[in-house]
């Protein structure tokens, strides 16, 4: 019984490792019993690894099939290894233009959504005002609405207003659904900010503009950056809302949607995999930089 009464020290708080009766020492157990015990202790971890495998498997398939030499129009069955698609990633009509359109829209909608969203987040995080609850509701509802409903209703508005679909209607739609996510990301940071820092700046004779630019903005920057990254990836990857508001304009997801009907070139897999590696690189670079900053600070 001693095991239960000794307080656990350190950060280990693994749920299953703490048993009521002192377990027999490992050497007293037969091999299968030992294996069974190990399995019982690590079953959650093993299950977690299986879940991660389930989540990563499609990416591996996408990568593998970017090296496929498909027999026919569709790239669904393995036929043979080739580097052709990687050597010529834009070798399919329309794929390059769709990628450029997607990047343009993602860049612009990130810019708009981040500026508008940061202003809203500052208002919510800083000031008392009437209509707060209403504002929160209006921000929350788009995040909890299925994309089809948002896409179809915005499309209906454009139809009724006789606005023709294209680049600008996609941009308007993307700013609309990215906005709430930027607000959430920035608001968390603004609410966690110590108001004394700004008071200190003003005590040191900083003008309101100086205080904002030299104190407030740098502190809020990580939240704004996170919001902008989120907006960029949401916009770049959006298909459903774009589907209802794009007209003849083809973004990369729209290209893939069309390709699924006409034939899927392995170039789609090349671009999908490249996006994955680029995003990973961005994450790693960001991580290394924050680590370095932490080291400098300590």
């Amino acid at each position: 019984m001693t095991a239960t009464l000794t307080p656990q020290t350190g950060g280990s708080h693994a749920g299953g490792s703490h048993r009521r009766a002192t377990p027999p020492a490992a050497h007293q157990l037969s091999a299968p019993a030992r294996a069974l015990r190990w399995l019982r202790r690590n079953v959650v971890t093993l299950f977690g690894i299986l879940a991660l495998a389930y989540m990563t498997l499609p990416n591996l398939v996408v990568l593998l099939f970017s090296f496929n030499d498909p027999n026919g129009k569709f790239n669904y069955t393995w036929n043979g290894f080739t580097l052709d698609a990687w050597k010529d990633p834009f070798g399919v009509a329309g794929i390059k233009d769709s990628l450029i359109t997607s990047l343009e829209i993602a860049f612009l909608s990130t810019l708009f959504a981040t500026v508008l969203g940061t202003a809203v987040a500052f208002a919510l995080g800083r000031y008392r005002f009437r209509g707060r609850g209403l504002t929160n509701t209006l921000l929350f509802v788009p995040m909890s609405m299925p994309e089809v409903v948002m896409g179809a209703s915005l499309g209906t508005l454009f139809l009724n207003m006789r606005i023709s679909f294209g680049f600008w209607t996609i941009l308007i739609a993307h700013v609309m659904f990215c906005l709430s996510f930027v607000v959430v990301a920035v608001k968390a940071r603004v609410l966690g900010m110590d108001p004394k820092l700004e008071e200190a700046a003003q005590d040191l004779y900083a003008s309101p503009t100086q205080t904002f630019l030299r104190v407030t903005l740098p502190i809020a920057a990580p939240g704004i950056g996170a919001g902008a990254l989120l907006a960029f990836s949401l916009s770049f990857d959006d298909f459903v809302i774009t589907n209802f508001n794009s007209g003849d304009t083809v973004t990369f997801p729209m290209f893939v949607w069309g390709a699924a009907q006409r034939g899927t070139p392995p170039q789609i897999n090349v671009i999908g995999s490249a996006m994955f590696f680029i995003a990973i690189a961005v994450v790693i670079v960001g991580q290394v930089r924050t680590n370095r900053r932490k080291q400098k600070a300590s």
Partner: protein
Amino acid sequence: MNALAPTGGGGGGGTDDLKEPPKRGRWVPYALLAPGMIWLVVFFLIPMLVQGGTSLQTGGLEKGYEFTWHFSTYWDALQTYYPQFLRSFGYAAAATVMCLVIGYPLAYAIAFKAGKWRGLWLVLVIAPFFTSFLVRTLAWKTILADNGIVVDVLNTLHFTDVTALLGLTEGDRVLATPLAVICGLTYNFLPFMVLPLYASLERIDPRLHEAANDLYADPKTTFRKVTFPLSLPGVVSGTLLTFIPASGDYVNAAWLGSPDTGMAGNVIQTQFLRVLDYPTAAALSFILMLLIVLMVSAYIRKAGTEELV
């Protein structure tokens, strides 16, 4: 307001020390709010109302549409497409349960077992989603292909016989069956389950586990009485974040399913973009929205976490 926000927490606190703007600056918060909120009113709220109006119109593409309080569009739409709505909510519910079953152990492992590898685990949860979701969903066509490895193994294990009995598969196929659609939905929305679960598990004070142990609770009891109740906010927001988008999805049903597995989203998409019957599309979309709002508010009431939303 934060139950659905993937960041969890963060909001709530702090509202008390907000400053009252000085008399001359009363307009400041409104000036900050105005551009963003006007954008949402014009391009989110008004479209919802316009869609409500369009759903009551009659007419055709050539003659133009006229507002006629034509409520029977709703009735006709429901009568014709109720199977799609049933499938939508059935598949979404099944996918949500699957996400919970797969996502909970994963979130638990990241929060309590990963130790110094926690960062890596989290990156691995999010990283797959950097590849466009359409491209990844196409990959499932390969994975679940007839005579592929996965389907062969499932056939050998007689798994497909069991699912065929349940009406989820047909013959030896997995692709183009409800099972494939549910599988795709589960896969696509799993991170929306894992991240809020992780956020609520991670906040649990490890000393509570030690206290439970000291009070002679075995690991099972500790989980049942301490860990799980404390993770409930994560379960609620995770299930909502999975169920809502899954019930409106149409990509999985279109690519992994067959015409017999169409969901509400597929009908809305077809009516709007191919048939160009805008009143019906608007009515269907309105019905979907209404049903989801009803279900979600009933669920939140039942889950007893009003303070979170």
